[in-house]
């Protein structure tokens, strides 16, 4: 790490003045928890870092209306963790915070930075996907809205332009849906997940009316398991159905071996935890 400039603009206009999309040594950042590690490891050598932490406006705060929950991109994890509204309306997020990194990281890391980092092991992105969240991204000329799922294009890769900033995340209010995130670790408790599994269901008795299943960590970016969803959608929960769903999930998920487990073991874990998660959601 060699010296670089750090600027903290107070307005979007000022931020864009400091940013230069054509210069890879100039980057925006949220909390910086991931970026600092890359800088220390000499994987990234910045000349200027532009903190978005003081932008305020739509970049900050959590608000709810009848249709959606809106979360500013610079909202820190600790704010989500301790928000009574989030606990009441999106408890899957509050629950995930219990094992998400550590208190030092949660006090600093931001929702937007976390999405932009596109590390497949992160816990929040699969949850946004399963909640059907959208993001608003802004550039000098305007803004666009896209599903969170469309941000990711590869391992640490996104579809966002160099001139774009994530401004806010919007989670729709979906009546009758319940969600669950399972962080499956295979070593120490504070390890990165071997696989992350987020599931959201709309259940009527034992009938799954609709659902979303998202797999993370074991794949290059968080992905919906559409095959397994198709098996379960509209079906009544029973053992053979769960078996078929597990097989479909293991079949469609392309999982590699790493220090957290072989691909075969992860497929087995996926089958087992998918089944358990659906049963747990049905029992809620």
């Amino acid at each position: 790490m060699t010296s670089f400039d750090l600027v903290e603009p107070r307005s979007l206009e000022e931020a864009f003045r400091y940013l230069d999309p054509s210069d890879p040594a100039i980057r925006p950042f949220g909390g910086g928890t991931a970026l600092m590690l890359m800088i220390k490891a000499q994987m990234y050598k910045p000349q200027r870092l532009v903190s978005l932490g003081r932008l305020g406006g739509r970049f900050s705060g959590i608000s709810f209306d009848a249709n959606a929950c809106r979360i500013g991109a610079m909202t820190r994890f600790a704010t989500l963790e301790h928000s009574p509204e989030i606990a009441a309306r999106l408890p899957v997020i509050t629950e995930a915070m219990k094992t998400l990194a550590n208190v030092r990281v949660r006090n600093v890391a931001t929702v937007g930075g976390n999405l932009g980092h596109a590390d497949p092991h992160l816990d929040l992105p699969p949850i946004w996907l399963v909640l059907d969240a959208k993001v608003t991204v802004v550039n000098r000329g305007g803004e666009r809205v896209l599903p969170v799922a469309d941000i990711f294009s590869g391992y640490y890769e996104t579809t966002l332009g160099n001139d774009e900033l994530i401004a806010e995340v919007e989670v729709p209010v979906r009546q009758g849906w319940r969600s669950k995130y399972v962080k499956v670790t295979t070593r120490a408790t504070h390890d990165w997940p071997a696989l992350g599994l987020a599931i959201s269901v709309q259940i009527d008795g034992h009938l799954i009316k609709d659902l979303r299943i998202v797999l993370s960590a074991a794949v290059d970016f968080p992905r919906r398991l559409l095959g397994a969803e198709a098996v379960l959608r509209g079906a009544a929960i029973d053992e053979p159905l769960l078996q078929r769903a597990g097989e479909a999930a293991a079949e469609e998920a392309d999982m590699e071996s790493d220090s957290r487990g072989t691909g075969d073991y992860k497929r087995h874990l996926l089958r087992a935890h998918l089944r358990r998660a659906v049963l747990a959601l049905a029992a809620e």
Partner: protein
Amino acid sequence: MTSFRNIDRSVPRLEGREKVTGKAEYVHHLRLPGMLYGKIFRSTVPHGRIKHIDVSAAAAVEGVYRVVTIDDIRTIIPHPYYGPAFHDQPVLADGKVRFAGEPVAVVIATDRRVAEEAAGLITAEYEELPAVFDEVEAMTSDVIVHDELKPAATFPDLQHLKGRSGTNVALDYKLRRGDVDAGFAAADRIFEHTFRNQQVMHTPLEPFVTVAEPGDGRMTLHTASQGPSFVRIEIARLLGWPENRVRVKVPFLGGGFGGKLYIKLEALVASLALLVQCPVKISLTMEEQFFMVTRHPCTVRIKSGVNNDGKIVARRCDVIWNGGAYADIGPRVTQKAGFTSAGPYDIENVSIDSYAVYTNRPPAGALRGFGAPQTAWAYETHMDMIADALGMDQIEFRRKNLLREGREQATGTPMRDAALDAVLDQVSTRMAWSEPVDRGTGRIRRGRGIAVGFKGITAPTTSVAMVNCYADGSCALYIGTVDMGQGSDTVMAQIAAEVLEIDAESIRVIHSDTDVTPYDMGTLGSRSTFHMGTAVLLAAKDAKNKIAELARELSLPPGNNLPLPELFRRKYGMQAGNIIGTGSFIPDYEKPEKDTGRSTKATPFWGVGASGAEVEVDTETGHFTVTKLVNVADVGVPLNPKLVQVQLSGAAIMQLGFTLTEEMIFSEGQLTNGSFADYKIPTLLDLPAEFINECVESRQNDGPFGAKGAGETSTIALSPAIGNALADAIGIRLTDLPLTPEKVFKALSDAKRLWSAGG
């Protein structure tokens, strides 16, 4: 009964307040005027001849002072090879690299970030050579890591070291007792198993760091070292200087665990400072520690002859220690852990072969337990496998064979003050062993296991201590023991204070500074309380005698209660003078016979511990939890019960990581998980819900106030206790550490396949 004011009292750590308020001194924080920073450029291949090193781009970076290779080092140290057992490790790679991660060059710059940046611009070309990584393969491999073996002959117990030239064997230690083949022939049953231990690392919170400060024909080293006296001796030898021109200072250490022993960064940083004639500092990153020193991977083959009544009549152990590219203290691990590798059992016929071998991995050295946990993993798993086959209760089987007080251990050294029975009994009680166990239902299965183990202590080693009573009656203790978190300052003050009849809290402990504090062999291998503790006891007694002498000289009647400051005033006419008491201790030792390993004094005392574990297994995923963990130790008389308790729990947590989650993973000699995102040490969240650490009532009769060391005891039997519990839960044995959920799952699936194939 004697009553004590300092002994068996949980005196709060003397340095506790300094530490929690962030005022404690560490080398990490040290900055000297004009100090430069070094950054190491490391080898990318595990074995190769260096064809070319290009430092030009690095040298051109603004702020870079100099880039150094072995050719520069040689102008300072003509024979730049160091090590405690072999002088085999070059200060920087010398024509050849022997592991991926080996230091090849160093950038010295005015700023550590600049040095880091420039080191990234160095390039090296290698002619790659075939490499060997596995210890068993290295025994017979055509790949030879060192063409020439260079024994150091520093330590009396290793003086006979020759190694086997033309092979990778740096040391072959032998122990022969009775006739093991005849024993096997006469035994009712024979059991033979092989066990493996993985490579792991110390992970001190404070990574390795050294500052060298050159003076006028002198050198001061500020270094995070567990053995300042050894550093001074070795640096003086390398430089060809007398010892009195090298000064080694060690403040507090942020953990050592055996890693910061002997000589690590010191020779390199001392050379750099002499080259540039400025103070130089090298601070390793957390990640670079994987390339400094590690714990030996180890393969143990163990064969036992057992009679149907459960009596073990013969045992053979073949232990192969993977020492990596440089021997470090591995040969001593090989010998010390070798001689106890048949376990704490009374066996008539024993044969042990223990080999230290070179491979192309990062070097291995001392790590908390000094090899004992690796051998105990083997012999205590083996013990349970035999008990299962004989249909005997695991504890009964052990009791039947346990070494009792006065009996000769395999070396011929009698067991003295070794509470093996007591620790086993107490674990049995804490585990409620006689009660039935809840085995779980459905996919959840539960089980329990126990294990017992022992270790010999590194010998012979010397400690020297000095007590200085100042003219106002206050006292300071001058010792080379390094407080690295274990609380040695506090315990040593307790010992001195007890003799001097004052409170431990009033004593000041002067930290290691070889210009000031006397010799100590090192803070290692559970030796400080016993060795340095005895030296401190002698020093305090010496001071006390001198105080009495002074009183006699002043014609005071015996039993007078004149306070010390008044004695000084009467002697010198004012507040002046010192009374200095000194003490020196080396225990009796008998060198093992070369061909039989026999010695009647192989160890000054025995480290003795037992563990018990309960596990809960999710048989669908292989995920399992240690729900209860009990560690019972024989520490003699606990001088400071609270410190003993945290030593036991700390060591147990460390060993828990080595049992469950930690493993350095290599692909063709390249470490693939060399960061703490991928190499997982346990945190508080990983601790068993029920976690008991305690000691039995015991006494080390020749120890200071009946005490012996406590720093490693709970590491010895922990892994096999958990492995045995796992086997009890699922009916399957794992023989290779670490015990991971995937291994459990795979063992269960393979067993299921076998059952279904068998119909």
